[in-house]
C-alpha cells in the first residue's frame, strides 16, 4: 500500500494520458466515419463488400499496427501519435459499419415523407436521417470507446501504454498492486465512458429507446 500512497501523481498523469490516447482517436474516427459511412451507404449493396474488405484491417493485432506506424508516418517509436493513428484506423473501420447500419435503419417512409414535404437532400439528411440513424450509430460508438480504452494498454509493450505502463511496472517488480490498480482504472474508465454515451443517447434521443440496440 506504500506504493499506492506515493504514486498518486504518477497514476493521475497516466490516467490523463490514457484518456487522451483513447478519446482522441474516437473523436477523429467519428468525423471520418460519418462522412465515409454516409458515402458507403449511398453505394447501396456495394457497401457490404467494402465493409467486409475493410473489416480485415480489424483483424490486425494492435501491437503489429503500433509497431508499423512509425514506418508509415515517419514518426519515432515512442511517439504517442502512433497509438492515436492506429486506434483511429480501428475505430473508423468499426464505426463505418455502425454508420451504414444506422442509415439503413431509417424507415423508408420517413425518408419519403421528408421528400414529399419538400426537404432538400441536405435538410433531409440533417433533420430526418441523421437523428433517426443516431441510436444505432451510438451503440456502435459504445463498443468502440470501450475497446479503445482497453486497447491503449497494449502500447505498454512498446513503452507507450498510459495506464498499461502500470502493468509493466508491476510485472518488472513482481508486485501485484500496480497491475490491479491499472486493470481497475481501465475498467472504471470504460464503464464511465460507456454510461456517459448511454446517458447522452437517452437524454438527447428519447426516440432511441424504441430501437433495439
Amino acid at each position, binding site marked *: 500500500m506504500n506504493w499506492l500512497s506515493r504514486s498518486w501523481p504518477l497514476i493521475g498523469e497516466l490516467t490523463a494520458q490514457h484518456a487522451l490516447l483513447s478519446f482522441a482517436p474516437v473523436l477523429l474516427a467519428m468525423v471520418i466515419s460519418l462522412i465515409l459511412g454516409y458515402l458507403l451507404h449511398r453505394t447501396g449493396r456495394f457497401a457490404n463488400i467494402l465493409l*467486409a474488405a475493410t*473489416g*480485415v484491417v*480489424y*483483424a*490486425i*493485432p*494492435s*501491437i*503489429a*499496427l503500433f*509497431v*508499423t506506424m*512509425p*514506418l508509415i508516418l515517419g514518426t519515432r*517509436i515512442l511517439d504517442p501519435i502512433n497509438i492515436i493513428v492506429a486506434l483511429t484506423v480501428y475505430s473508423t473501420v*468499426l464505426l463505418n459499419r455502425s454508420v451504414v447500419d444506422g442509415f439503413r435503419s431509417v424507415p423508408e417512409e420517413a425518408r419519403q415523407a421528408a421528400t414529399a414535404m419538400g426537404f432538400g437532400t441536405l435538410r433531409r439528411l440533417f433533420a430526418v436521417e441523421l437523428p433517426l440513424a443516431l441510436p444505432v450509430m451510438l451503440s456502435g460508438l459504445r*463498443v468502440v470507446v*470501450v*475497446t479503445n*480504452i*482497453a*486497447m491503449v*494498454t*497494449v502500447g*505498454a*509493450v*512498446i*513503452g507507450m*501504454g498510459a*495506464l*498499461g505502463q502500470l*502493468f*509493466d511496472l*508491476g*510485472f518488472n517488480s*513482481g*508486485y*501485484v498492486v500496480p*497491475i*490491479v490498480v*491499472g*486493470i481497475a482504472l*481501465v*475498467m472504471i474508465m*470504460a*464503464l464511465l465512458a*460507456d454510461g456517459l454515451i448511454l446517458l447522452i443517447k437517452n437524454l438527447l434521443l428519447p426516440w432511441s429507446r424504441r430501437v*433495439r440496440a
Partner: protein
Amino acid sequence: MNLFSYLADTQNWAGADGITARIGQHLAYTGLSLLLAAVIAIALGVAIGHFRVGQFLVVGVSNAGRAIPTLGLLVLVVTLMGSGVTPVLFALTVLAIPPILNATATGIAEADPGAVQASRAMGMTSWQVITQVELPLAFPLIVSGLRNASLQVVSTATVAALAAAGGLGRLVVDGQRLGEDGYPQMFAGAVLVAVIAVTIDILLGLLAFGLRRRRSRTNRAETARTIDDGRAPTTEISRARRAESHSAEDHSAESRST
C-alpha cells in the same frame, strides 16, 4: 537500415529460437487455448441457452470481457502464477471464453422455436434436441464467436512474450530492447502476427459466410413453400425473423482489446 533485413536473413529462421519455431509456438498457444476455451464455453453456452438460465451471466461476462485490458490480465496471472507457458495458456483461455460463450448461448436460445418444438413433439429427448436441432442451428453463430475469440487470442499471444513465454511477440519485445537497431526484428514480428491473424480471420470468416448462406437458402425454400400452400405471404413474419437473426449477429459484434 533495411526493414526486411531480419526477415530476409535465413539464419534468423532456423533453430530453437528462430522465426519458424516462434510461429510454431504462436500457433500452438493459440490453438490450445482456443480448444480449451471452446470446450468450456460451448458446454456452458449450451446449458445456458437450452435451459434459459443465467443469461444475465453471459451479458455480464461479455461486457466485462470487452473492457478488461487483456495485457493487464495476462501480466496479473503471470505475476501471481509465475512465468512460463501454463499461466499464459490460462490467461489466453480465460480471454477466449466470453465471445464463444456469448455466441453459443445466443445461438441456442434463438434457434428456430418452431423446429425445437417440432423435435420435442416428435418425442426427442433433451439431449437429442440439443445435439440434432439446436446445435446445428446455432453452429454458424458459434463459428463467428470462435472467430472473434481467435482474433483476441492471436493478438494477445503476442503480448505473452512480456511474460517470458515464446511466440512471435518475442521478436517484438527482444527487438524493442535493442533500441533503434532492433526495429527490423520488431517489424518482422509485427508483420508475421498480422499475416497469421488475418489468415485465420479470413478462413473462419469464409466458413461462417458459407454456413450462413446455406442456412438462408433453406429459409428461402421454406418461405416459398408457405406461399405455395396458398397462405398469405408472411412478410411480417419473415421481416421479424430477419430482424431477429440480425440482432443475433449483433450480440456477437466483433470485440477485442489487444
